């Protein structure tokens, strides 16, 4: 089903403490995507802006950013699903194009996490889930994923060394990705318990340690979507959206069915996307998954059907998800090393897959000219799940 294509992708460097405002940050990804597509603002029919609003001092940023990017008087609006905001934005853009309402839509994800102080940020993190019934216990994001990690490790024999291996894999590619926030290699000794020099070893929310948690960052991403006619007229190398899946789940942990089975939204979104694309997990040649914590990558392997339930650990033990493996995953460093600027993350994952399918991923390029790639992008603690499949 080749009806909506990506003809331009862009991403800012992911950094700590971006030296500029959100409109200047947005401009970086937008400019690169527009140059990549070879179009001007006159070609664009509408824009969608995506972020997690609690970080922005600017209220209703869409209009402000659209003006800064030269996208007025075209329609613009704001889309939010926390960490999966820009995947949701792409889904909305897809719908607008497929409906025939618009021909060319810009989806721009951004987040300046350093827009607020770290004390303010911590308070918002604590309120990131069920503020009425769970935040009063002092919850935070790592603790929620740790609940999944604890139950999963107890049942399936996943070890701390396996989680460390996920972090080491991410760092392997963070080192070679010029846009990543964390560019250092991570070694096993960085996780050594009781060694004050081992900066990844400290507990955050046990069983998760410092090294199991992704890096906060400021960043922006931009995806330009067009219909079939425009794709043929404007682009020599369109990448098509073949399948889209999305799902939601109860916010409260007391309503989660089974902590040993991973995030239900991952399974639901994946099965929808595979069905729409008419493919199976075996057809996927390269993937980006939502590794906000190391455990999340293992659970994603299973939710996406790359491994049977409980066997995700084998993929990291056997290096199956390295660049040279059967199914390369997060070979741009992932959220763990590339960084996780909430609203920009989904668009950045999509950019990586589009570059892979065009053979333009540089040192991160997967061999064998991959023809199908997948993006898995989760919002909250499996509150929202998005899977999008791309093909040449």
């Amino acid at each position: 089903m080749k009806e909506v294509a990506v003809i331009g992708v862009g991403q800012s460097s992911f950094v700590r403490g971006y030296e500029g405002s959100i409109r200047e940050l947005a401009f970086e990804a937008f400019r690169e995507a527009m140059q990549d597509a070879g179009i001007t603002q006159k070609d664009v029919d509408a824009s969608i802006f995506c972020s997690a609003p609690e970080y922005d001092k600017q209220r209703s940023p869409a209009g402000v950013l659209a003006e800064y990017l030269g996208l007025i008087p075209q329609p613009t609006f704001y889309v939010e699903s926390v960490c999966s905001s820009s995947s949701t934005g792409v889904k909305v853009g897809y719908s607008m194009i497929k409906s025939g309402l618009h021909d060319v839509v810009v989806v721009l994800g951004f987040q300046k996490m350093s827009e607020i102080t770290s004390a303010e940020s911590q308070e918002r993190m604590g309120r990131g889930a069920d503020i009425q019934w769970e935040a009063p216990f002092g919850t935070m994001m790592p603790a929620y994923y740790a609940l999944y990690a604890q139950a999963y490790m107890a049942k399936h024999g996943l070890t701390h060394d396996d989680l460390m291996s996920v972090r080491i894999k991410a760092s392997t590619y963070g080192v070679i990705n010029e846009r990543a926030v964390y560019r250092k290699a991570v070694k096993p000794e960085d996780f050594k318990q009781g060694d004050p020099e081992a900066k990844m070893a400290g507990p955050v929310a046990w069983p998760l340690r410092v090294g199991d948690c992704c890096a906060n960052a400021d960043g922006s991403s931009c995806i330009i979507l067009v219909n079939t006619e425009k794709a043929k007229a404007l682009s020599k190398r369109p990448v098509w959206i073949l399948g889209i899946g999305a799902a939601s789940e109860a916010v409260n942990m007391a309503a989660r069915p089974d902590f040993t089975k991973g995030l239900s939204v991952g399974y639901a979104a994946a099965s929808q996307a595979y069905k729409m694309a008419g493919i199976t997990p075996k057809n996927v040649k390269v993937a980006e998954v939502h590794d906000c914590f190391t455990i999340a990558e293992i659970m994603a392997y299973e939710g996406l059907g790359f491994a049977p339930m409980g066997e995700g650990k084998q993929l990291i033990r056997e290096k199956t998800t390295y660049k040279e493996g059967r199914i390369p995953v997060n070979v741009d460093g992932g959220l763990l090393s590339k960084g996780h600027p909430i609203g920009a993350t989904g668009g950045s994952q999509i950019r990586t897959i589009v570059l892979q399918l065009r053979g333009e991923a540089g040192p991160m390029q997967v061999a064998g000219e991959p023809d199908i790639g997948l993006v898995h992008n989760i919002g909250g603690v499996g509150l929202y799940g998005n899977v999008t499949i791309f093909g040449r």
Partner: protein
Amino acid sequence: MGFEKFGRKSFTAVTKMAKFVDLLAEGKIEGTICKDCGAKFFPPRADCAKCLSKNMDWFEMPKKGKLETFTTAYYAPFGFEGDPPYTMGVVDFGGGQKLFARLSKDIKPEEVKVGMDVTIRPLKYDDNQLSFEITKA
């Protein structure tokens, strides 16, 4: 008494479920049950998500369950800085009923295991905030 009395620190002052806090003061941990379709909810809800009824009643949560999972927090969000380390977990009572709360300080960290038998009880903090906690069966 309003809902600002709930938990270590409440972020919600006004809710139709403020009676939950009054029940805690009476030593009861209760969820709600739909009088029309029988659906049970914990945490309690004023409205039934199954049949859209607003006709809800209170029911007392079971006492005996198993610890399905847990985590120990070594960092805390703004407003909880003095609390770490503290352990939080999910109790599975069976029949689809579960509960999320902190674990009592009287369980030693090395004693906490997935699948262990646990019970729940109301809790009053020194500053008179009301909550509930998971403890040994």
